[in-house]
């Protein structure tokens, strides 16, 4: 890239950094990618593996110190959801985050539905 100098930034290149550049063009989240309302949290032992992370991955990891939902994380960082999911998948594969997916098992649970109903009625 550097060897070709200015040719890289010609007018066909579009925006200099598309969000997908952060994830090297991957659009399909890996199997390890969490769902939209799964919660993620940084693993307690992150060790030296963080040194090899890019700044965006590191920023995301720093926002996971307390449990946060994937969709909230995308909204907070203003990054596209698909990009955030791919990056979280990367972090998970390195054992840097844990994923708690209470939603999918429990959303059909009667207790959850009743609890949501009670909450809505009290609004």
């Amino acid at each position, binding site marked *: 890239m550097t060897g070709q100098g200015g040719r890289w930034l010609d007018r066909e290149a579009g925006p200099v950094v598309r969000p997908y550049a952060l994830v090297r063009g991957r659009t399909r989240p890996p199997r390890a990618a969490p769902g939209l309302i799964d919660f993620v949290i940084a693993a307690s032992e992150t060790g030296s593996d963080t040194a090899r992370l890019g700044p965006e991955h590191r920023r995301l990891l720093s926002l996971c110190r307390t449990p946060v939902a994937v969709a909230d994380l995308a909204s907070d960082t203003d990054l596209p959801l698909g990009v955030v999911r791919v990056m979280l998948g990367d972090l998970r594969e390195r054992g840097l985050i844990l994923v708690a997916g209470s*939603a999918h098992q429990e959303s059909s649970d009667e207790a959850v539905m009743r609890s949501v109903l009670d909450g809505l009625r009290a609004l």
Partner: protein
Amino acid sequence: MASERSEPGAGLAGVPIVTKLLVAGGFGVGKTTLVGAISEVRPLSTEEELSEVGVGIDDTTTVAQKQTTTVAMDFGRITFPSGVVLYLFGTPGQERFWFMWDELAFGALGAIVLVDTRRLADCFSSVDYFERRDTPFVVAANHFDGSLRYTQDDIRDALDLEPDVPILVCDARKRESVKEVLIASVTHSLARHRSRATLTTRRD
């Protein structure tokens, strides 16, 4: 799809019980208004590969080879005093964003199909989708000034809905009205859940 989603038995400290409802319907039917009437609306977008159908629609001639597009979604969150969190996701209205629906619908408690009775056909694809997926849904007719009031039977006939699908008339701008729609949706999901549980027990 769900297999690798979460750590086995993950009940991590500080993680609330969360669930989601979908708000579907044609473009401009009032999904954003509805979400905004009951919850804080937050920015959320996704950048996805364009489907084949979309490629011809977006002008991609000046950006050769670029096959992704940014899609804005309606996104709201209600945190109840009990700690339970309900997320609302508005599904992108245009059919070229179908690829996102499976992800949005996965694990959803239920769905609200918002309709404009002047343009009923706009919601056909949403109704088809939730019927095919077996996602419990309610139909909410957003009453626009000047639109004719149809009876529930008219709407049921026009959309060929099963008798148990609730049909409501709402005003997506009004919090109380939207609250009733959400309550109807969760009540319907709960009733469906209970009737299925009964069927399963009988079979055992």
